[in-house]
């Protein structure tokens, strides 16, 4: 069994698909790594839900401003050309279709593009949704970065999500440690395999029918 792509490689692979000049919102976790792998000659402008465009990398200890954080509540910086705005304007950018790409982590993605990444639905668990449902409905292209399976080996790419949905039919592309997978009108289709990974391995670890690359 191959190791497939690392977290960094998954992020780098996703970055390849984002055009120059895109307005990008990165989810917490592996998606955040995309910012480290912007291809040569391209520039992305980062949006954070809590009211900023032009977000830059984390600050050094002494340039830290306690009032300058991202939606993950981590300290960040502002690049030249940045802008601050309030939450209604920030989500107008999201809901109004002004953000080009959102890269999200997930618990499950279904073959019809449904995504479940906000709640396990366990009784007693405290539900917390944040901006996830706004992002999946509003952003033009929803990309997902995720391990192909859970830690216990369960597929995360499934026929139907068993967890409560975040949004219906919204995901267009998935970057896993094993492959790049498109959500097509006829279901999952591999468009690229990680080095050393076979289509059969991907198929075995996917919880829904999946088509090979053409």
């Amino acid at each position, binding site marked *: 069994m191959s190791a497939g792509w690392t977290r960094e490689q998954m992020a780098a692979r996703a970055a390849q698909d984002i055009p120059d000049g895109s307005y990008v919102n990165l989810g917490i976790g592996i998606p955040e790594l995309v910012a480290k792998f912007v291809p040569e000659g391209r*520039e992305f*402008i980062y949006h954070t839900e809590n009211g900023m465009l032009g977000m830059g990398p984390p600050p050094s200890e002494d340039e830290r401003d306690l009032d300058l954080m991202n939606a993950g509540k981590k300290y960040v910086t502002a690049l*030249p*050309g940045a802008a*601050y705005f309030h939450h209604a304007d920030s989500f107008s950018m*999201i809901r109004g279709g002004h953000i080009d790409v959102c890269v999200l982590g997930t618990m499950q993605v279904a073959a019809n593009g449904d995504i479940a990444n906000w709640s396990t639905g366990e009784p007693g668990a405290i539900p917390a949704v944040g901006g996830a449902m706004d992002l999946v409905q509003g952003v033009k292209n929803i990309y997902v970065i995720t391990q192909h399976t859970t830690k216990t080996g369960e597929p995360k790419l499934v026929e139907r999500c068993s967890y409560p949905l975040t949004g219906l039919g919204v995901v267009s592309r998935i970057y896993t440690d094993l492959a790049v997978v498109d959500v097509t009108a006829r279901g999952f289709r591999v468009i690229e395999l990680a080095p050393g990974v076979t289509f059969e391995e991907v198929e075995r670890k996917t919880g829904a029918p999946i088509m090979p690359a053409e």
Partner: protein
Amino acid sequence: MIDKRCPSVAEAVADIPDGATVMVGGFGASGSPIELIHALIDHGARDLTVINNNTGNGEVGLAALIGNGQVCKMICSFPRSSQSKVFPELYKQGRIELELVPQGTLAERIRAAGAGIPAFYTPTTVGTVLAEGKEVREFDGRPYVMEPWLQADFALVKCEMADPVGNLTYNKTARNFSPLMCMAARTTIVQARKLVPAGGIDPEHVVTPGIFVNRIVEVTDPVHEDLLIAAGRSYP
């Protein structure tokens, strides 16, 4: 670096097709993007639906665009003024259509388009002829009218300062509808009195974030509608 600058007003409006819906910033003369409008007259696109609070004054700017026969429909709140002759004449001849929208509803419908809100409820026009044919619904015992968003293909906007990323500031009450129109149009074209480098506008002072702007043309010494009219000018 991302750079939305465009070399001329002519190039900035060159792809506006016949039949387009075009939002035009400004409230009366204040904030009217005269150079962009005149470029649109030179360009010649016809059958335009234009969204503006008014219908222009004298025979320059928006009034000239209408007078040149390029506009088939105006969506506005106040289509007449002491100095507006062009629209009233065409309207009385039945040669131009009018959708009259109260000013606050016009602003909110434009914002809604930019914010991805397809419809909302407002108390404005309840019980009046302007609510005829519209859905009325009660919330907490008070009636409200449902209004849809108002989208556009293009917005033509005048601003004070712009950076290459598209961040904008405005000058005083010339701000009016322009930040909303930037949000609502598929392609937003801006004429800026002053272009500054990225970082030249304090991020706290940005009124229109660059994400809402597609093209920026520097027009360093813009003409003002009031002065053109006072000088008896017409266009073309």
